């Protein structure tokens, strides 16, 4: 590999290096910069500046050549990413195309990636639920993976900390399984959703709450949000294009510009991290080797502390590729578990129906959020023939009545649409169990055009997941029937793992260095100045959308790293 360390050593030395600028990397950058550390953020993709680089954000539907639809050519060229609901004409420029970054599917895995400044934080579904001890205690109670080294009380103040800055809308529901946060005013459940919520409270004696989702939207911006240059969410529900108001939280609208304003951030796009440099003599990591994605030259950068936030699977890749005489199998990988025990969320199950009620009511405007049913299965104790459970999305909408006929008759219907029967729908978000043979590894032979080993992915559904899909269908059908919904239909999309975009693990946290890679502060047990705070650190997956937890873990880990640096324990 040709090194091109054109800049002097001094210009290439920082107080902290953060690999990745997505939702967790952005937080690491903000926290370090706020505390005055000269921070280098390395992003493998191009720069995407807030507003300036949202080319479709103000386009009307008719201004899209294909009205938002993908062409046959694009679908054929992108059999994987075109399955993603947000990969459409208005946002496909924010996704990795299949041919650009190949990987090996040992079993079907739809790897959805966003290689740019901000990563997938531009594209996420923005649902932000806290974990509770029902989640953190899961592995220990049910005997899988390893015990989490932290509990809710460790993370609660950090959830509050990141929620206040990010701006989270939600209702204080007082549920132990889904702790309340620092909420901005909630979005509204619509009439049918409210009816369903009330009906379920009666039928299931409050054991199956149906609530409005908690989401990263500024329903009522506070000073801290205005200070970021963000404004009130306008309910455009076009978030995947990038929001000109900064109405939802993304690295691009929030943490990155904030960190840049401190003058402490060096943001370097087009920089793929090849590996982390480990110094045998010093017994620590000293920096990173970076490939310029344009010139393909390699440069080394140095810092006393390194945060790996490359997104779950790519964080595994960077660590596996960081070999040295001390760590021949990847950085911190003394126990051979690096890349193993990866898991995801099971999004296969859907249930749809109609509701004949509320004929005189409808909704107005759009809502970038939906109803949410927190996990109710196996919550207090094991009660089914499968482990763990699922949360569910729930939403009702009033479509137009069907329009039939021809000519002037049809035209009259089209010109003045009448409301049809309410539709209701739900999808599951199931916990999957991390297993040793559910893993990622580096292909021994194939390299990409930048000389990085190609990732091999081996993830799959197991019997537990199949039973869970079945139970979700049975339970939701029973709930829909109890509510008087009609035309109930169930669907198993059989979608491959990955399309949930919630891949997690491989560098799991734990108490024991023999069975985990990271300690309770997200530090590699065996290389204390390297921290992993993205999805790779997750010991188990539970059912919540995970980004909020990554943010909280990141802020907490930076706080710890700063304290350790002050004590002289990290140099």
């Amino acid at each position, binding site marked *: 590999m040709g090194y091109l360390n054109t800049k002097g050593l001094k210009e290439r030395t920082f107080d902290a290096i953060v690999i990745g600028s997505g939702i967790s990397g952005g937080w690491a950058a903000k926290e370090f910069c706020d505390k005055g550390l000269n921070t280098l953020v390395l992003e493998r993709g191009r720069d995407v500046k807030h507003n300036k680089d949202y080319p479709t954000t103000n386009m009307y539907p008719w201004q899209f050549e294909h009205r938002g639809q993908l*062409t046959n050519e694009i679908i054929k060229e992108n059999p994987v990413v075109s399955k993603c609901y947000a990969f459409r004409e208005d946002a496909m420029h924010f996704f990795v195309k299949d041919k650009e970054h190949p990987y090996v599917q040992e079993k079907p895995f739809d790897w959805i990636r966003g290689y740019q400044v901000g990563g997938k934080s531009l594209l996420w579904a923005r649902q932000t639920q806290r974990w509770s001890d029902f989640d953190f205690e899961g592995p220990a109670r049910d005997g899988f993976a390893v015990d989490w080294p932290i509990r809710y009380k460790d993370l609660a103040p950090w959830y509050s900390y990141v929620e206040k800055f990010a701006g989270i809308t939600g209702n204080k529901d007082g549920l132990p399984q889904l702790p309340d946060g620092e909420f901005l005013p909630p*979005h509204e459940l619509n*009439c049918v959703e409210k009816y369903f919520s009330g009906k379920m409270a009666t039928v299931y004696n409050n054991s199956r709450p149906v609530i409005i989702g908690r989401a990263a939207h500024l329903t009522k911006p506070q000073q801290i949000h205005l200070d970021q240059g963000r404004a009130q969410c306008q*309910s*455009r529900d*076009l978030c995947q294009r990038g929001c000109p108001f900064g109405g939802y939280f993304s690295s691009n609208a929030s943490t990155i510009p904030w960190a840049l304003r401190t003058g402490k951030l060096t943001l370097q796009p087009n920089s793929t991290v090849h590996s982390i440099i480990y110094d045998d003599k010093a017994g620590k990591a000293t920096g990173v080797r970076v490939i310029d994605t344009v010139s393909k030259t390699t440069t080394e950068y140095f810092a006393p502390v390194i945060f790996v936030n490359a997104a779950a699977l790519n964080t595994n890749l960077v660590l596996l590729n960081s070999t040295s005489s001390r760590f021949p199998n990847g950085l911190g990988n003394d126990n051979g578990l690096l890349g193993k025990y990866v898991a995801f969320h099971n999004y296969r199950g859907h249930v749809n129906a109609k509701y004949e009620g509320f004929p005189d009511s409808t909704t*107005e405007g759009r809502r970038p959020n939906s109803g949410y049913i927190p996990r109710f299965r196996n919550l207090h104790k094991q009660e089914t023939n499968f482990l763990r459970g699922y949360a569910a999305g729930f939403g009702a909408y009033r479509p137009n009545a069907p*329009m039939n006929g021809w000519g002037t008759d049809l*035209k009259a219907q089209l010109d003045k649409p009448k409301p049809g029967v309410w539709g209701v729908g739900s999808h599951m978000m199931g916990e999957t169990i991390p297993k040793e043979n559910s893993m990622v590894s580096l292909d021994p032979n194939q390299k990409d055009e930048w000389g990085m080993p190609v990732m091999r992915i081996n993830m799959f559904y197991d019997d537990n997941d199949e039973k869970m899909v079945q139970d979700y269908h049975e339970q939701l059908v029973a709930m829909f029937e109890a509510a008087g919904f009609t035309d109930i239909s169930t669907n198993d999309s059989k979608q491959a793992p990955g399309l949930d975009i919630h891949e997690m693990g491989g560098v799991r946290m734990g108490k024991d260095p023999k069975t985990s890679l990271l300690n309770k502060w997200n530090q590699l047990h065996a290389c204390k100045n390297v921290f992993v705070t993205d999805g790779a650190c997750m010991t188990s997956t539970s059912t919540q959308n995970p980004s909020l937890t990554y943010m909280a873990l990141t802020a907490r880990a930076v706080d710890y790293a700063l304290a350790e640096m002050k004590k002289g324990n990290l140099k």
Partner: protein
Amino acid sequence: MNRRIVLKQMIWMGAAIAFMPSCVYKQDKLSIQLKRLQISPDQEKMLASLADEVVPTTNTPGAADLGLHLFALKMADDCFDDASLQKFSAGLKQFTEAKSKKATLGLQQAADDAALKDFARMYKSLIVRGYTQSEYYMTKLVPYQLIPGGYKGCVPVA
């Protein structure tokens, strides 16, 4: 027809002409470049008149004014998967042949014919989509709000 309606129609016609490529009225030439679908200029003219059967011009613009047959052709050509395009293409051929024998054959009639119904339904749905997703429809009839500003979960049906 009063002056107000004439003026309105002139505005709509302006919008419709702007939508159409400049070569629309050239003879014996397709007014749209197609990559996969093969049609003749005569078939294009026929499709234009079939579109008007779905959404006719009344005292407001219809398919012909809005050039919806061109939208339909573009969507089929660019977005249909191979199987759908094949079905559409074969259906169009069958329809053209049937119409050459019976000049009065229309799309509505074809929708009830076992051999022609797939084509009729596919084309109808493209025209309906073109209409409801046209700038005219989304500004004048059922205005699309780029910035709704909020959400109300329960309002009386208007």
